């Protein structure tokens, strides 16, 4: 599966992803963002009066089929999604900017801020990767993954150096 998400899918990832997850975990997910199928309804509103587009036509956040990905079907403008739940971390709300018929920017207006979540959630443009400032977590894990590469070369080099140094 190619993971180049359609624009709607991207919004779903950012906004709906949390809502979907929240809906599956919690009955307190914000009703406004989650329909009966648990899918996000990120119907947007135009906040830029010069944009000339409407949210209904824009389809931002419409989790339609990936086949729609190939055609530019979005009207230029700035669209603000509804507040979605990112329980237990709080709420999340994004603003999408469409330029040239394509999603060019996603701003996170409201970000999850509860315990356990880092405070600089943001999104890049293409592809929609999520960013955050790293934050030290509790150490109660079973296993740790890090770039612990083998140190054999170091040891060998040191041994040879010490061999030369020995009297």
């Amino acid at each position, binding site marked *: *599966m*190619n*993971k*180049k*998400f359609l624009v709607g899918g*991207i919004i779903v*990832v*950012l906004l709906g*992803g*949390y809502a979907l*997850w929240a809906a599956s*975990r919690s009955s307190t997910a914000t009703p406004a963002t989650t329909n009966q199928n648990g899918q996000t309804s990120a119907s947007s509103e135009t906040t830029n009066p010069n944009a000339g587009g409407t949210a209904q036509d824009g389809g931002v956040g419409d989790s339609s089929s990936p086949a729609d990905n190939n055609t530019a079907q979005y009207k230029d403008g700035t669209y603000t999604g509804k507040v979605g739940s990112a329980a237990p971390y709080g709420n999340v709300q994004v603003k999408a900017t469409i330029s040239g018929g394509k999603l060019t920017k996603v701003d996170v207006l409201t970000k999850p801020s509860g315990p356990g979540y*880092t405070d*600089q959630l943001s999104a*890049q443009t293409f*592809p*929609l*990767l*999520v*960013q*955050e*400032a*790293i*934050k*030290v*977590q*509790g*150490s*109660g*894990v*079973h*296993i*740790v*993954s*890090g*770039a*612990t*590469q*083998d*140190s*054999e*070369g*170091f*040891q*060998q080099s040191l041994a040879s150096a010490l061999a030369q140094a020995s009297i």
Partner: protein
Amino acid sequence: MKETRAIMGMPITVEVVDEHASQHMLEEVFSYFTRIDEQFSTYKETSEISKLNRKEIAELSDEMHEVLMLAEKTKQETKGYFNIKKLDGTLDPSGIVKGWAINNAADLLMHCGATNFYIEAGGDIQTHGTAADGAQWSVGIKNPFNKNEIVKVIYPRGRGVATSGSYERGSHIYNPHSPTDILSDIISITVVGPNVLEADRFATAAFAMGRAGVQFIEQLAGFEAYSIDKDGIATMTSNFFTLTV
């Protein structure tokens, strides 16, 4: 039952939490790693890889053949970013042997009857089943700026985890397309894949890609990644969050 030994120049930890876990299981795994080290270590003059690099052997073992084929496959799948051929022309398959060996060792453990375990070698991990308390195995991503801290907790649920980075040995990975570049922007990238072999080979390549690495992983079905740059900003694939719950 849990034990750590230093093999292949790195700590290798095996924990089996099944009631019928036995020392025999652990010995099987450690013996396997020791054998692979004898065969693939470029630091051992008698290893098969060293003999191959000195052009002293004409016929490859099945294992060497498999590893070299995997390396070539990975090279093609990563636009040449994964390349076991060093600047001096010799082959160093250590970038793939670790994940490959962990994966095989996990199969070995299952063959011995283990169902709930993990194997961790040099920061690369394969889990299977659950932890002792029935909880999902949890994996902490090490803080590249302080190795005693973790900055993210994930639950791989049987998938493989591998981290590639520059912070413990200096820049041990270079960009084969521009060998003199110092990869200083991205400090580490953790890749979760279908198993530890898949995670390891793509983590190595993604790290060599620098900032583009996490975008490369984004395109791969079944993979997620979490990269950390020199400013302490993490960039993750769009579905990475599913691993954190």
